[in-house]
């Protein structure tokens, strides 16, 4: 083997790398990354999340480990282990900040340097899935992340949108980004798709409906499902709780479980 190779690297023990992308901000990338990790864990998989959103790192809080710090070992940085049984590994700039309100006001080159480190210097060990949560857009973070991950042959990307045209408009551009960078699109998730009033069960399409599904059809990529707005999900994320284990009857659960199942089906030994 050459001095450096994908086989020797810190990602050598990671079976599948998948990215969660969106052209649009605030559509639920971190939410989908978190819930997917929790669902894959229930299916017995070892999961890690790499959070490359350097300006707005949401992952630490979503697992209630925002106070944790990162330690070093011989092979690099030790990820933070989350969940009661420490079964989910995390890395985020959130763990490296002295004060949580400190703004990371970096231009591209500095962001790129940290992302390269995040990809190569975290000692993930053996993982079935490494989920990469990204900031919105198609810029430095995305270019650097895809470039750094290329030797490790990512499985592909899940694109998250909300139903309305303003979001879909940005996600179309993200699809082009995937095409141009050779990143396979695993599918589109339409998040915040309808809200069922807990008092009277009336469904209101607060952010419209159907845009994500239409985009998937138009672009010829799989549609992974519609996730409704669910105050219990928002609350779980605020509190860093395991929504998948604690709220299986909540309205967003079936769709989130279905997304995870499709990822599992797509990566099972029988499929190729």
């Amino acid at each position, binding site marked *: 083997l050459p001095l450096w190779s994908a086989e020797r690297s810190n990602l050598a023990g990671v079976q599948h790398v998948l990215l969660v992308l969106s052209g649009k901000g605030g559509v639920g990338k971190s939410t989908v990354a978190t819930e997917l990790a929790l669902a894959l864990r229930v299916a017995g998989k070892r999961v890690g999340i790499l959070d490359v959103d350097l300006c707005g790192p*949401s992952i630490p809080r979503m697992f209630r480990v925002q106070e944790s710090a990162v330690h070093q070992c011989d092979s690099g940085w030790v990820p933070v282990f989350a969940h009661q049984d420490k079964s989910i590994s995390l890395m985020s700039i959130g763990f490296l900040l002295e004060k949580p309100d400190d703004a*990371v*006001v970096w231009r591209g080159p500095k962001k790129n340097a940290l992302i390269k480190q995040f990809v190569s210097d975290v000692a993930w060990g053996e993982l079935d899935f490494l989920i990469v949560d990204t900031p919105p857009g*198609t810029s430095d973070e995305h270019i650097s992340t895809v470039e750094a991950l290329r030797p490790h042959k990512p499985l592909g990307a899940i694109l998250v949108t909300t139903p309305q045209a303003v979001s879909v408009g940005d996600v179309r*551009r993200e699809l082009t980004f995937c095409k*141009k960078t050779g990143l396979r699109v695993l599918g589109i998730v339409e998040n915040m798709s309808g809200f069922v*009033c807990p*008092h009277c069960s009336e469904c209101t399409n607060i952010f419209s409906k159907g845009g994500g599904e239409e985009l998937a059809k138009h672009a010829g990529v799989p549609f992974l499902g519609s996730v409704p707005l669910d105050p219990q999900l928002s609350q779980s994320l605020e509190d860093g709780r395991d929504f998948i284990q604690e709220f299986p009857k909540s309205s967003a659960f079936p769709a989130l479980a279905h997304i995870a199942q499709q990822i599992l089906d797509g990566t099972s030994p029988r499929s190729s």
Partner: protein
Amino acid sequence: QGCPNQRLCAAGAAPDPAEAAELRTRLRSVKHTVLVLSGKGGVGKSTFSALLARGLAARDDKQVALLDIDICGPSVPRMMGLEGEQVHQSGSGWSPVYVEENLGVMSVGFLLSSPDDAVIWRGPKKNGLIKQFLRDVDWGEVDYLIIDTPPGTSDEHLSIVQYLSAAHVDGAVIITTPQEVSLQDVRKEINFCRKVKLPIIGVVENMSGFICPKCKNESQIFPPTTGGAEKMCQNLNISLLGKVPLDPQIGKSCDKGQSFLAEVPESPATSSYLSIIQRIQEYCDLQHSQEEKII
């Protein structure tokens, strides 16, 4: 394809004195500049920028300019009903695209030929375009320049603050939603503003509760688990400009490129927006009269 002046896109360094002078000249005709910021994506910056611009332009005697510096995800053209419009060049520079006679818009969206075109640029190229937007767009005499930004605290934000240092910025309006996942990013943005000495006009809490159209009960879809914007503003000694509830018609009118304020005047969200716009106008007027006293 893409930007017509690609070769002019330089590395994003701080403006040199000659450049600073150029920007100062161009922006001399702008009376008030307001930046719309948020650490968090998807909280309603573009929605708010568009409505702020429309609200201010409701007065015929005011000239309003809306500049969209979200290079990767330009939402403003659609929200203003200007999808598919292109930028024209004249002797005096780039012409903004006009929604009304007194409301002009500029966005990278107008430079893209297809809705699938992705702007996959690193920082320096983005900075170059932002500089061009400030230097080469012929806004004319403007009472209010509203600048819509992407989420975060990065190249676009550093650059706009640096380039605008040649001119006068009234301040920043910061948008958030009630939950801590948003607030934790917004606090960073507030820190950014303080670091670069950008005055903060105040905070707007968007998506603040939803009233079911059928049973009229309220649901907190994005729960203010840590006290919402109200608590944050108290803690940081910043003005809370107002709270805007969720209304499905907001998203719909943005998608159709219509003014929510005009389409649904009876919505509680409309009254919230109008009151917030009023407060921003008052803040700007106060700045103006303070400056005149100094001169």
